[in-house]
């Protein structure tokens, strides 16, 4: 880059790199003056719009895009840290193969032509197309479309999508829930519901950490601010139901420390009281009375530990408000009775006629063009375990992995490591060496999101149909290659049907063609006369969205005809041997662990414990006293399936019968800032019980015990425990 370089990003010439002397300054570049490029944040699946400040070809700062309907100029901590994804010192600088064999960590550079040769000959000598598998995680929608098209033309099974972040936010389960309630038999997919927090007077959040990592935290955070101080009708009320006081619960007006697994019972109890006492201004509840036929409020109070008086008070508050909404959150999806619980919570909105009402529940309106019609979903966990079984049975010869790190993100009982070892050829597209790349034959690094192309249909979160566009803001730093282009090159080599299905010269041609499908849509913020003009406006705005808000009213056509039921949650581990409920939770900084290689996020204090750089175990003060441990005492956490050691944080906001551990640390690989630091609580997780039938990852359904070790380890905390303040000298 030094001395000469062409900076593009808005201009399609990014595809053709030319060296030019500085006497002819690059287009759009003025020395010392910043150029701003509109793109999309890829640190989580939300798809916030960003503006990147670029000076002399270097990206210097990421801001939220004020025009973007999702985040309106705002950005979260992880979004702000995106520059360190681009400028990470541990990135792979070219395609590599493991010269000492898989797991050796000896990576030798290879030419891209050689890598694609190897890949295409492997595809050509494939016994049957079903012997290919693609495991994807957080992928751009355009790449998912390309990959799906590739696999379909080949006759291979569709990609399996799994990453821990979406598992922790319960995306697959929320999609299932939406399908059960709002879908008809013809609908291929129902989008995730939107909860209108900004205009709600009462918000009941059941384990939704909506101000942290769940779904679209920036949009929800903005809505929260409006709910608090921006409403004409006064300050909204937020009640959080969960066993551990999360940062979201800290912002709530009331935290109900629910006994794990009884969230759904509470929702049923609230509904029963509303029906019984005919609360609210919505007329008769007789239409929905059958849902609560079998509910006894005293039984609910006994099981959940929440008194009948509290339940009555909350039911009255919920029903009395004109605008109230109940949100089924990600934590519910980690429980054995997750889907029943989510149904019970969603039913409160149906009962109070909150569908399609201000401050209630909506469905996003579809983007009016075919390529954007169905937004990327995630696979059910059963599909993930099926894939692992196929790998174990030796039914897969080529495994391609993009945008996820299954070796870190899946519990050991899945046998993922052993399964991957069975596959003759494993390709990782990771931009640095993570745990999974260590087991790969070839690592073909994709561009990072600030160097690459893409788009994402925003779902859920925005009040209107929106596609976030992603474009390079700087020239790729290294000899990396867009995975979309690799797939296209591969398709061309394989020839036949596959080449016909993917005829584009490169992924930009594909994007250009897709964006043009929206040409002539009168509802958009812009239109153009030609596809080229449209494409240029697309890049200028950072995507496409409608001028006016547009949301759909869901119809609860799938409302159960019988009574709602929530069976008792099953927890793995004997209550005597393992007296505590384990609550692993996504770290606000590191999310599911993908932020662990970014130093800004490592040093970012956790909002509740103010700790950074490590893993800790949160214990109620009474529990800590009875175990005779205090802050910084290292304890061993033992489940029937694994154990880990970490220092204690005495945490006033957790039930005495629960322990909480943040997810995100405990990497064996993944660069200098991540590796060899803390522990991964996934090691403790039990396999799904009969109750969950393997359909999802029950990450909140394991019991543990705590053992003292006698060791101490000082956590880096901003909070000073001895009152000495900062700059304490040793």
């Amino acid at each position: 880059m030094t001395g000469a370089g062409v900076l593009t990003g808005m201009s399609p010439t990014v595809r053709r790199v030319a060296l030019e002397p500085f006497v002819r300054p690059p287009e759009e570049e003025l020395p010392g003056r910043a150029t701003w490029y509109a793109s999309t944040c890829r640190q989580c699946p939300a798809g916030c719009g960003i503006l990147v400040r670029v000076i002399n070809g270097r990206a210097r700062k990421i801001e939220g895009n004020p025009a973007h309907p999702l985040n309106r100029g705002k950005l979260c901590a992880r979004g702000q840290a995106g520059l360190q994804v681009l400028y990470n010192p541990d990135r792979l600088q070219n395609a590599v193969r493991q010269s000492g064999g898989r797991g050796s960590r000896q990576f030798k550079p290879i030419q891209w032509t050689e890598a694609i040769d190897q890949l295409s000959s492997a595809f050509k000598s494939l016994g049957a197309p079903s012997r290919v598998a693609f495991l994807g995680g957080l992928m751009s929608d355009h790449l998912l479309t390309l990959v799906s098209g590739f696999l379909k033309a080949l006759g291979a099974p569709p990609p399996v999508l799994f990453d821990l972040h979406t598992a922790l936010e319960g995306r697959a389960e929320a999609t299932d829930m939406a399908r059960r309630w709002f879908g008809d038999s013809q609908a291929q997919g129902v989008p995730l519901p939107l909860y209108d927090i900004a205009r709600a007077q009462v918000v009941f959040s059941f384990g939704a950490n909506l101000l942290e990592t769940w779904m679209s935290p920036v949009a929800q955070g903005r809505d929260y601010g409006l709910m608090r101080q921006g409403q004409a009708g006064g300050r909204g009320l937020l009640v959080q139901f969960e066993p551990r006081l999360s940062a979201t619960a800290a912002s709530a007006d009331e935290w109900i420390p629910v006994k794990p697994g009884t969230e759904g019972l509470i929702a049923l109890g609230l509904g029963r009281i509303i029906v019984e006492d005919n609360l609210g201004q919505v007329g008769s509840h007789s239409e929905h009375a059958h849902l609560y036929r079998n509910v006894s409020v005293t039984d609910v109070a006994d099981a959940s530990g929440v008194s009948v008086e509290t339940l009555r008070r909350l039911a009255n508050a919920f029903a009395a408000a004109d605008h109230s909404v109940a949100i089924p959150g990600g934590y519910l999806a980690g429980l054995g009775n997750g889907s029943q619980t989510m149904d019970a919570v969603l039913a409160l909105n149906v009962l109070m006629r909150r569908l399609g009402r201000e401050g209630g529940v909506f469905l996003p309106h579809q983007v009016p063009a075919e390529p954007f019609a169905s937004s990327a979903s995630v696979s059910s966990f059963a599909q993930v375990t099926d894939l692992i079984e196929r790998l174990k049975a030796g039914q897969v010869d080529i495994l391609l992995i993009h945008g996820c790190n299954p070796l870190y993100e899946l519990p050991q009982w899945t046998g993922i490591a052993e399964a991957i070892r069975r596959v003759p050829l494993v390709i990782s597209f990771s931009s640095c060496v993570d745990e999974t790349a260590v087991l790969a034959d070839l690592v073909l690094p994709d561009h990072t999101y600030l160097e690459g192309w893409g788009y994402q249909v925003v779902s859920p979160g925005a009040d209107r149909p929106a596609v976030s566009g992603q474009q390079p803001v700087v020239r790729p730093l290294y000899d990396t290659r867009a995975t979309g282009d690799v797939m296209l090159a591969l398709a061309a080599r394989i020839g036949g049907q596959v080449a016909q299905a993917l005829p584009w010269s490169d992924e930009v041609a594909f994007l250009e063609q897709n964006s043009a499908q929206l040409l002539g849509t009168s509802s958009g913020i812009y239109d153009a006369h030609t596809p080229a003009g449209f494409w240029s406006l697309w890049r200028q705005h950072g995507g496409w969205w409608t001028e006016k808000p547009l949301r759909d009213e869901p119809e609860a056509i799938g409302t159960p005809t019988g009574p709602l039921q929530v069976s008792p949650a099953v927890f793995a581990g004997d209550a005597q041997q393992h007296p505590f409920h384990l609550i692993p939770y996504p770290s606000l900084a590191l999310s599911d662990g993908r932020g662990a290689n970014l130093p800004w996020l490592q040093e970012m204090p956790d909002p509740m414990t103010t700790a950074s750089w490590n893993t800790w175990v949160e214990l109620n003060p009474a529990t800590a006293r009875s175990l005779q441990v205090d802050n910084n005492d290292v304890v061993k956490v033992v489940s029937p399936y694994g154990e880990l050691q970490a220092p204690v944080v005495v945490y006033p906001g957790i039930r005495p019968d629960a322990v909480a551990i943040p997810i995100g640390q405990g990497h064996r690989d993944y660069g200098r800032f991540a590796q060899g630091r803390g522990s991964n609580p996934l090691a403790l997780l039990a396999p799904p019980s009969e109750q969950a039938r393997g359909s999802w990852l029950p990450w909140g359904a394991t019991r543990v015990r705590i053992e003292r070790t006698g060791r101490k380890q000082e956590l880096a905390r901003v909070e000073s425990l001895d009152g000495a303040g900062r700059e304490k000298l040793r």
Partner: protein
Amino acid sequence: MAQDVKSSVEAAPRWAMIVDLDRCTGCQACVVACHAENNIPVVNEQQAAYGRWMHWIIVDRYWEGEYPNVKARFTPVMCQQCAQAPCEPVCPVFATYHNREGLNAQVYNRCIGTRFCGNACPYKVRAYNWFEPEFPSPLTEQLNPDVTVRSRGIMEKCTFCIQRIRRAELDAKAQGRQLADGEVQPACVQTCPPSALVFGDLNDPNSQVSQLARSHRSFRLLDELGTDPAVIYLKGGETNVPG
């Protein structure tokens, strides 16, 4: 002539920040945005445990009550830009001084690292570079060219993103117009998802900060010390759990 001087003093803004505690969610976006904007070094686990972290803004968390009636409250704290700043008179080399716009400015190349200012600050918002900052290549590319990278032995703290103030002033001047309210946005204010932070000119009675500062919810940290801070907090809602 005297008239001119008077009007120019009156025309000088008093930059101020509103922190609405009822909106703050403790999400730490401000913390990372500040690191990115102001080239703040990351220390490491051990140094951070010593209390040598360099954040210019932190979100204090206070526990109230006991389980189950427990409540956590967030309070973002950055340099309060005091009008009567305790950090200023103690500096032997005038590295920390008061500028015309009411900002506590820090001149890095005057600082000799006595840390008297850090001692004197009642808000504990000053950070000291105990070591040369490390930006393993190519992390140097992330650095903001508008902001000095401080070296070892230098005291630093929140500047209200003075580089952004200057940039906006210069742009407005070049276009021959007055700065508009809300035109200057420090990195933390710009990114704050719930808009808990608002920045503006307290000398303009119609600015958003002036209007919010008149709220019945407003207070200032350690106001009894007489430091006259330019950061004005708005009290959070009555959020304790009813018995």
